[in-house]
């Protein structure tokens, strides 16, 4: 039988071996790490002679025995998972929605996928009626799923906040009527936050994503007010107030890094020093020709930065376990099941984005791309072929992913990244892959360090 795949790496003073198919993760010593280079291809005798003078014979034999044991237990080189013919979401259940309640913005961030706050000239707001239709659509199309997710997104959702409030109330009614549990979240730039909105958000939103890019100069370069001023000083105090009042509920302060700040660990650090503990800083996604885009020439710097930051992260977390960097969080034992890890984000079938007009798109990143309109709240999904394309874009159908060691952690990457890079949902965005793999290695090395 063909040997299953392993992946090994050394980082943050740990030798780590992942068994790709079973999900098992092992911390090993240097000797085992070296022996694995030959295991399976060479006999024990040959291995002993290869390492003659390097490792003790008896120790090698013992280690070899331990490896054998794990192989027998299917925790090393274990065979590929057999999911039969993975039929994903056969009933076309929808369980999450991104509501674009305002296609308008009061900032004009250079990299915004909502295009400079002006949405190609058109500023529109979702009506309460459309919003209600969306929630009903979700309740009715969610089959027996109980937990439903609704994110208020934009543009800037606080520009249509009364609708947000009314929709939360309406969701609570639907909870009862359909026996559901609506979980609301909101993504905001903070400009319009005041005490009332902060209290409402803290009371009603399961998660809130606060957009800010880190250090003042980094933020103000990309995140400008309508009058071209910096937005940092306007927003920071409001975010602080929100977070202070938020208690233990989830939030993320979320920044974007570009090639101007490949030293983004300083931005993460700055967030932490400002009192924010749950942080996400992510690579910008944009066509290569943009002056701030991340291109292959920036990759080495970015990967090094992740590694460097992982060292600092380990140090900080020794003192403060509340500090979380979204992309370094990984739960090896209670993570998602194999089905979830195979199919990924669910865009286009389980997850839909709704425009102010009530049109449906596979996700927020595709909104406004004419070819990706799936249908509308009134008609339902019309472009069923497109839905199939999304459903089939899983790790088994993407050539690169099929043989990639990271497939069950990454789940095949972001469809929007793939599309914008190659106009093809089945071709992963290379730069994204390299960053993702580095983040996974960092995350696991962090766990290994915290395991002591």
């Amino acid at each position, binding site marked *: 039988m063909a040997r299953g795949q392993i992946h090994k790496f050394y980082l943050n003073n740990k030798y780590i071996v992942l068994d790709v198919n079973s999900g098992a993760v092992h911390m090993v010593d240097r000797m085992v790490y070296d022996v694995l280079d030959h295991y399976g291809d060479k006999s024990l005798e040959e291995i002993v002679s290869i390492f003659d003078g390097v490792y003790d014979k008896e120790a090698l034999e013992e280690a070899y025995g331990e490896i054998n044991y*794990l192989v027998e237990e299917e*925790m090393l080189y274990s065979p590929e998972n057999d999911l039969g013919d993975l039929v994903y979401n056969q009933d076309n259940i929808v369980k999450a929605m991104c509501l674009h309640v305002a296609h308008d913005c009061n900032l004009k961030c250079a990299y915004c996928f909502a295009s400079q706050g002006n949405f190609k000239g058109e500023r529109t707001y979702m009506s309460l009626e459309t919003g209600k239709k969306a929630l009903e659509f979700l309740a009715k199309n969610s089959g027996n799923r109980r937990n439903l997710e609704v994110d208020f997104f934009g543009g800037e959702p606080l520009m249509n906040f009364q609708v947000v409030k009314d929709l939360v109330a309406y969701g609570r009614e639907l909870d009862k009527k359909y026996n559901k549990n609506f979980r609301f979240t909101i*993504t905001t730039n903070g400009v319009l936050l005041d005490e009332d909105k902060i209290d409402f958000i803290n009371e009603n939103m399961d998660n809130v994503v606060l957009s800010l890019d880190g250090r003042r100069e980094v933020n103000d370069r990309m995140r400008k007010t309508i009058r071209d001023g910096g937005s940092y000083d306007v927003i920071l105090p409001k975010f602080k107030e929100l977070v202070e009042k938020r208690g233990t509920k989830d939030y993320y302060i979320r920044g974007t890094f570009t090639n101007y700040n490949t030293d983004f660990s300083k931005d993460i650090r700055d967030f932490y020093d400002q009192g924010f503990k749950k942080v996400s800083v992510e690579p910008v996604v944009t066509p290569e020709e943009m002056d701030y885009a991340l291109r292959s020439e920036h990759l080495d710097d970015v990967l090094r930065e992740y590694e460097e930051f992982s060292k600092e992260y380990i140090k900080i977390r020794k003192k403060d376990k509340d500090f979380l960097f979204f*992309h370094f969080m990984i739960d090896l034992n209670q*993570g998602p*099941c194999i089905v979830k890890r195979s199919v990924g984000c669910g865009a286009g079938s389980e997850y839909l984005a709704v425009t102010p007009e009530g049109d449906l798109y596979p996700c927020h990143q595709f909104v406004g791309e004419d070819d990706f309109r799936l249908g509308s709240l009134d008609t339902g999904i019309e472009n069923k072929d497109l839905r199939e394309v999304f459903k089939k874009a899983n790790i088994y159908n993407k050539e690169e992913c099929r043989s990639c060691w990271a497939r*069950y952690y990454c789940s095949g990457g972001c469809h929007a990244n793939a599309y914008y890079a190659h106009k093809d949902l089945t071709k992963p965005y290379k730069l994204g892959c390299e960053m*993702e793999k580095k*983040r996974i290695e960092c995350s696991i090395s962090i766990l290994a360090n915290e395991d002591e």
Partner: protein
Amino acid sequence: MKYIKTLSGKNLRREDLAKIGCGECQTSCQSACKTSCTVGNQKCEQN
């Protein structure tokens, strides 16, 4: 074992195939990032 310490067992091989794929867990992009999909760091709702 002396040379190997297992941090996590066979977490992708769950005994009970009927129970996996229940679909109650979070949709990745909704949770925090909104631009890239990392599923490994999500939580299973059955735990």
